[in-house]
């Protein structure tokens, strides 16, 4: 049968006339793609074949047209508007960087990749996979790393560890030397997550001790006084100490279980995900709890996209859930992305595209998602041989994933601008 008439619209580059077409109901994306290409070739003689992806009412077409329309309850008698976009190319594998131990965290910039490792070090790599620096100083597993500031001469970076401290490092790029500037003490448990704020002057840390702490990220020459320093052997403390001691500016308490992930929503709002099945939003200025989103599973990871203003969370089940942090009623899950078979350990929104995100899971697979197709991901990146523990996505279009197989995989992914209004 014929699936009624279909009008199609696309970005300017591959625009066709806005005339309804009658399309066979059984046609799939490839058939539709052929149709569009024929139309384009008719209009433009030197047109090259381009593969397209098709959207009906904001949902990707992943099956024959008629089944999709049946599932979405769209009548085949009416004119259906199908949007098409150029098909996203598969991410191209670039590098595989070998570590000595499990990779717990990764954060990349345009020039360097910073990884935290279970061998108690943080490492800096060039984008080509060359080891530039190994930062040793922690006495326990490094759980999270973050860049604070970068310029051509020196960079500031942070590493959080299971030894309950966060170290603020200065890396002199020219001399290739690191120096521990500050040792942030105050947590009474493994520091699992750190996030630097938008002004690059503060950072927030979340720990197993159920607390969130806000610290200054500006290096100074002064040392903060530790309250509990008195009951420690003086000598021991001195030998252990790396850098100047720093104490938190503020402590946010309210979680009843370990905090697994923190991030800044904007200049003065912090979001934290916890093992107590909640995501809490905090006012960074006053330290007050603003709202709570309640789930029913332990949260492993949370990420926020300023483009679509949505939170995405990975928890100890198979689903990635999208949340609206502004919703007042609190616990509304907007969408679940389900395809993983193990815990979702890490999620990250695309910094450039409002619909795309990447997720890593205990089932050894990294998945690239488009929120318009919530049943099936765009691509499965099945390179890891063990648990995936961390993922990252840079603005330059680099996808990074590290895991328990000691490997950090890099993928080049064309930085697609968001295609809204196409």
């Amino acid at each position, binding site marked *: 049968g014929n699936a009624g008439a279909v009008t199609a619209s696309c970005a300017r580059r591959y625009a066709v006339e806005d005339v309804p077409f009658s399309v066979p109901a059984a046609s799939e994306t490839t058939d539709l793609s052929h149709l569009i290409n024929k139309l384009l070739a008719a209009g433009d003689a030197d047109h090259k074949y381009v593969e397209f992806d098709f959207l009906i009412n904001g949902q990707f077409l992943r099956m024959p047209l008629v089944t999709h329309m049946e599932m979405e309850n769209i009548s085949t008698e009416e004119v259906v508007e199908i949007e098409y976009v150029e098909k996203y190319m598969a991410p191209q594998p670039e590098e595989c960087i070998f570590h000595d131990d*499990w990779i717990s965290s990764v954060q990349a910039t345009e020039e360097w990749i910073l990884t935290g490792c*279970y061998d108690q070090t943080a490492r800096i790599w060039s984008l080509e996979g060359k080891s530039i620096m190994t930062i040793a100083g922690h006495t326990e597993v490094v759980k999270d790393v973050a860049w604070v500031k970068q310029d051509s001469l020196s960079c500031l970076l942070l590493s959080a560890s299971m030894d309950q401290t966060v170290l603020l490092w200065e890396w002199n790029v020219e001399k290739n030397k690191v120096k521990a500037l500050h040792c942030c003490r105050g947590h*009474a*448990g493994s520091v699992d997550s750190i996030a630097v704020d938008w002004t690059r002057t503060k950072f927030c840390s979340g720990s197993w001790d159920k607390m969130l702490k806000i610290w200054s990220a500006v290096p100074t020459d002064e040392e903060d006084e530790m309250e509990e320093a008195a009951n420690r052997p003086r000598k021991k403390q001195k030998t252990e100490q790396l850098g100047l001691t720093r104490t938190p500016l503020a402590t946010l308490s309210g979680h009843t279980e*370990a905090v697994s992930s923190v991030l800044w929503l904007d200049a003065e709002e912090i979001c934290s995900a916890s*093992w107590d099945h909640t995501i809490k939003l905090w006012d960074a200025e006053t330290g007050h709890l603003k709202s709570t989103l309640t789930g029913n599973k332990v949260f492993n990871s949370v990420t926020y996209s300023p483009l679509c203003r949505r939170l995405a969370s990975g928890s*100890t*089940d198979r689903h990635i859930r999208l949340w609206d942090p502004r919703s007042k009623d609190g616990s509304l899950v907007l969408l679940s992305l389900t395809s993983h078979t193990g*815990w979702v350990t890490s999620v990250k929104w695309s910094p450039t595209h409002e619909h795309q995100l990447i997720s890593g899971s*205990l089932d050894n697979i990294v998945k690239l998602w488009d929120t318009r197709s919530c049943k099936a991901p765009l691509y499965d990146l099945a390179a890891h041989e063990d648990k995936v523990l961390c993922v990252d996505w840079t603005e330059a279009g680099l996808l990074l994933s590290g895991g328990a197989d000691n490997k950090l995989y890099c993928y080049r992914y064309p930085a697609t601008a968001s295609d809204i209004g196409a």
Partner: protein
Amino acid sequence: PLSSAPLQDIRNTVGNIPMEWYQDFPHIGYNLDGKKIYKPIRNKDELDMFLEKMENPDYWRTVQDKMTGADIKLTDEQVELVQRLQKGQFGDVNFDPYEPAVDFFTHEVMIHPVTNRPADKRSFIPSLTEKEKVSKLVHAIKMGWIKPRKPKDDTPTYYDLWAHEDPNSILGRHKMHVPAPKMKLPGHEESYNPPPEYLLSEEEKLAWEQQEPAERKLNFVPQQFRCLRAVPAYPRFIHERFERCLDLYLCPRQRKMRVNVDPEDLIPKLPKPRDLQPFPTTQALVYRGHSSLVRCLSISPSGQWLVSGSDDGTVRFWEVCTARCMKTLPAGGVVKSVAWNPNPTICLVAICVEQSVLLVNPCLGDKLLYGATDQLLESYEAPEEERVQPVQWVTATTEEHGKGIRLIVQHSKALKQVTWHGKGDYFASVVSDNSNMQVLIHQTSKRWSQNPFRKSKGLVQCVLFHPIRPYFFVATQRYIRVYNLLKQELTKKLMTNCKWVSSMSIHPGGDNIICGSYDSKLAWFDLDLSTRPYQLLRHHKKALRSVAFHKRYPLFASGSDDGTVIVCHGMVYNDLLQNPLLVPVKVLKGHALTLDLGVLDVLFHPTQPWVFSSGADSTIRLYT
């Protein structure tokens, strides 16, 4: 015809009314002028009337005018008219009813008709009213209001005598059948040659004869005959048959009521498992690293670290959320039991290796805490006088200290189990021995051990401290004994109904205990209810190795040699009247059977609805 007009017009104006109405009045009506018309004076009595009748020759033609009351004498014509009417003749004398008929129209058909009017239209078109009536009937037939006549049914009808009888009553009559009472079977005394003890002696015979026939125990006297041939005919045969018949129809019989209940109805309705969430459903993580079967598990109070002991002689510490092995401690022997100190301010793990309990500081978690634990252990000062102890407390050597071992409690025999008291100072150890030295209670802070029992009550399988109250549970092969540690006495003895208890666990509320047994049963005891199991669950196919309660969620789990972990919902209500609700919710599979062993230990996460299981396939699995 009116009477002849009198002089005076005395016509009465009352009209046609019954004149009796004026009976009691002196007048009889009113004339045209409205004056009363008086009745004529009648003063004739019976005698006068008679005389007049006799004397007046016109009496027979005199009538009374009712309207005026006057007597009128009928004329001859009037009399004649009356006589004619009486005869049934016409009043008019001149009317002749028998005049000859004049034939105006002849009966013969004439050539020229009398009238030549054409026939009416209505004589040849159907009648409208008839058509209306017919169409009404047709409509009624169509609508089924009028039924066409049914063809007569020629089949002969018979009267069914039992047509209206209730079928149940027939069945009921069959059901109501009461079998006749059975006759007593003949006994030895009825034999022709009874054993001598059945024969009556002379006194007994005398007594028998003196008894009332109804009171006699036997209604005959046992007799002995030489042989069957010598037995005479039984004289009471007819009599006995008659009595039996009397019995059968005179004795009232009673039906025994049997209740018909569907056994399904007796099973209480259990809620569906998906209404009882959360509970672990899928395998999430596998902790690999051990090279031999993993016997025992324990978890830190915060739920961040897991410790496991294995037959490969190592104890491993794991990060729960990533399955990362953080530390490996070679213990130098098969690790039978590990127990993390439940006190969250102390970081200490007790490990059973062969004949000693190692107290290990894993140095995981908060630095302050494990530092404080070390300080606490170091702050011990030996008492001045040497005490006699059943065990030896040894401080670890420097080399052992580096591995984390702090204290070694050396027993004389191989150890089976170690368990901590909720406060984290005392721990109990079980030795595989048959003497009264099987169970020892140790105090860490004073490094002091004591033997709580004077006598051995059997082979002790495992021991347990009550989470809140000073009770101590000791499971032997078949019984669980509950001792009060303060009063130093036995409080209760629980009958497990199992052949060999393997493990037990106590509900965090402290009033319920589950115990698993090697004969694949799990017994739930409600301590307030009874010393017998409240429920025996037989879900496993093979021996149970371990049972565990969750600290926060109403869950308990059991691990078995069949390689499965069964998670059950075990809701305990605060209301004493409501019994606990036990619903099996999930069978978790994953462990491979090795050496005919499956799951060796199960353990719940302290805060999340997650369950760990350690197996003979040298893995630990986490189900969430």
